[in-house]
């Protein structure tokens, strides 16, 4: 009874009209196309609206702590490299509370896919500024408007050394599902930041606001996603025009390649009932 439709029956707790529905649909589509079955996929999340996603997909799920999806995800992949591991996280979850894991897991380059539902707001906690909130945006906490410079996820990921960096838009479901499929198939840490309107708390960066700005980067004939400097420029674009698509892509050795995990029995399959520690004990043994 392998599960290929990825349809969960859990009731969805998002607001009607939320951009998360588009992402959910695109992810379902990508998973269906991937040919994987639900028991081979592990969805990992932290806490937030975005982080509820794994419950709405019929695949394995680890819904952990706010900000801590990445460590769980990479370790699960290290433990069982047969899993396809996908993180569904929010801008607060991934770039705020989880910022340190974001930086260092890019360096680790474990083969996982990270989908950031980026609504530029803390949704579940009712609308405080997130790392990606536009400057000047007013909330109940940021009463004079957000003072901090916004975080640039794509540019930062590039500088930190990520090999697959993309931006999607929840309003472009097919395009997004293609991106997701590419990310899933990419070997290494793949980041997709997805523009996701929050109809309840972000009255600035609305569906319309994004729609008027996004354009597909690969429609731009001169765009070469393997050129890092161009990617730096492109990932800095945020204003009248916002690029979506694969911003940067580079094939390189993953953690599993370098650590030898790919050339051995998965950790989870090892026999643990008969560890023979003679050799290690011998190291400490002294015959009088």
């Amino acid at each position: 009874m392998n599960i290929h439709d990825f349809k969960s029956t859990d009731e969805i707790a998002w607001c009607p009209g939320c951009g998360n529905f588009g992402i959910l649909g695109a992810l379902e589509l990508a998973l269906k196309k991937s040919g994987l079955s639900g028991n081979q996929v592990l969805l990992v999340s932290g806490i937030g609206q975005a982080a509820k996603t794994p419950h709405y997909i019929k695949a394995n799920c680890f819904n952990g702590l706010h900000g801590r999806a990445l460590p769980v995800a990479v370790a699960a992949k290290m433990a069982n490299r047969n899993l396809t591991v996908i993180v569904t996280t929010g801008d607060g979850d991934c770039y705020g509370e989880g910022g340190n894991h974001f930086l260092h897991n890019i360096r680790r380059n474990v083969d996982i896919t990270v989908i950031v539902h980026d609504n530029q707001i803390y949704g579940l906690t009712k609308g405080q500024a997130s790392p990606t909130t536009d400057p000047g945006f007013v909330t109940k906490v940021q009463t004079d408007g957000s003072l901090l410079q916004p975080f640039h996820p794509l540019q930062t990921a590039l500088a930190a050394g990520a090999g697959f960096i993309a931006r999607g838009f929840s309003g472009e479901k097919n395009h997004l599902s293609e991106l997701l499929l590419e990310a899933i198939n990419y070997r290494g840490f793949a980041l997709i930041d997805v523009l996701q309107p929050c109809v309840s708390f972000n009255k600035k960066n609305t569906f319309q606001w994004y729609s008027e700005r996004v354009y597909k980067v690969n429609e731009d004939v001169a765009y070469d996603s393997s050129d890092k400097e161009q990617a730096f420029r492109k990932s800095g674009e945020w204003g009248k025009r916002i690029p979506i698509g694969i911003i940067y892509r580079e094939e390189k050795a993953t953690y599993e390649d370098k650590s030898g995990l790919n050339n051995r029995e998965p950790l989870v399959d090892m026999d643990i009932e008969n560890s023979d520690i003679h050799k290690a004990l011998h190291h400490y043994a002294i015959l009088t």
Partner: protein
Amino acid sequence: MKEELTIRIAGEAGQGLATIGSSLCIIVKKAGFNLFANQDYMSRIRGGNNFFQIRISAKPVSAIKEKIDILIPLDKESIGLHKKDCSDDSLILADVKHYGIEKPDDSIIDIPFFEISSGNNTYINTAAIGCLGGMMDIDFVLIENVLKTAFEKKGETIVQKNIHIAKTGYEYGKKLQKAGDIRIKPSTAKEELLLNGNEAIALGAMKAGMKFYCAYPMTPSTSIMNTIAHFAHDYGILVEQAEDEIAAVNMAIGASAAGVRSMTGTSGGGFALMQEGISLAGMTETPVVIVDSQRPGPATGFPTRTEQGDLNFVIHAGHGDFAKAVFCPGTIEECFSLTIKAFHIADKYQIPVIIMTDQHLADSIRNTPVFDHEKISIQSYRIPKNESLSIKDYKRYRLTDNGISPRAVFSWIDDVIYTDSDEHTEEGHITESEETRNVMVEKRFFKRYKELEKEIIPPSYFNTENADILFLGFGSTHNVLKEVCESLKEENTGYIHLSQVWPFPKDQLIPLIKDKRIYTVENNAGAQLAGLISRETGIKPEGSILKYDGRPFSVDLLKREIMRRIK
């Protein structure tokens, strides 16, 4: 001939104290003696003043003495600094000329270490080892062999040079036998292990089938990671250094959720950062083993020193009510066996288990009978791979009589598995229901503790029946408590030692302490064990013997303190 001897080698960080110390341990052990070696070091890499101390005895020993019999200062400063720990009979072996000591007093025995070392400071260690060997009448072949192994990598010339210098030192030592006879009765020969507490924990983890170790460096826990990394290839273990302790515990949980036995280790400050993760393990019912290798707090505290100040913090780790177990080995053997038990309990009951140790136990080396590792059988509580495919309608948090749900492995079963840190249904989906909450608390908390109580490690004890007054300790004070109380048997004293502090072994403890005068012995300021005993047994200790200066109890100090309580 003497029964025992305490030798201290003191000098700056970077003078190779650990190297000389461990060579000496091997030589002494090979010569047929028992030993207990502890380290006292500062939180710096060079300079300052550290020491390596070794107690050598005909009988097994595993605690420190207050006074040293022989001091080997590696610099002039060390003489002044360690004089206070010498007795009238102590000998100080020092190169009077080289150190420029102006008026050497009687206790100083002048040995031209510098000259023996052909004027090269780096060989003074070797000269000292040779000299000690000669004084103790150890067969020089033993020394030669140890030096060979130690310097093998540096090439034959260096090996020979060391052997030559050791031999010259040895001859000096032989001549000194008259100055102070430090020969010790030999012990019976047998194969034993020479290792410290952290190494024993690492070995326990390997035996228990741990395949994933993830940690962030922190003294005094780092040597667990080093040891496991050393053997990682042999046992197919993945060792990963995390970016911080929050990542470390969440990675251990992630690997475990994926079906692999995993562990992390840290000290107080890092353990503080793991609190939310421990609570996550409790909520998601994910087995995980965490070592808190204590050092004195609060905050950064004394990074390289010892304390037992985290007891309350550890047993109450993590917000909310959930089941956990806390072990605190008292001996090197227990470091090994309780680590295995920690994995067993974590896996069987799907809970976090914490092993509490401390710098003193972590870093001290002693000779220990070879662990009875072949008799230990390890059982995995996952649904085995070959039974997995027949699983239908899997529910991660299925309600069962004892609260334990069968644990399937991602991808081994056909079905999917939902794991959740929110309050959840049997399926693992988020819920808001009060009824579900009640059964889940029942499952995670009440029923779990009922099961855990069945497996509690009873306290070990000595002379409790006859004694009027009992001294209680936990963790690393075991050995000193044992030595002191056994020597005071005639005084109607006894001791009780706890190797498990949570769930608290109240049913086992109450009969032992009822109607007795009791005191706790603790390496902390808070008398935390005393409070715990009061709460859990309703019996209030009369008082506590506390030490919180970052140093372990010596046999002599504890004896004096106990004598004060007896009178």
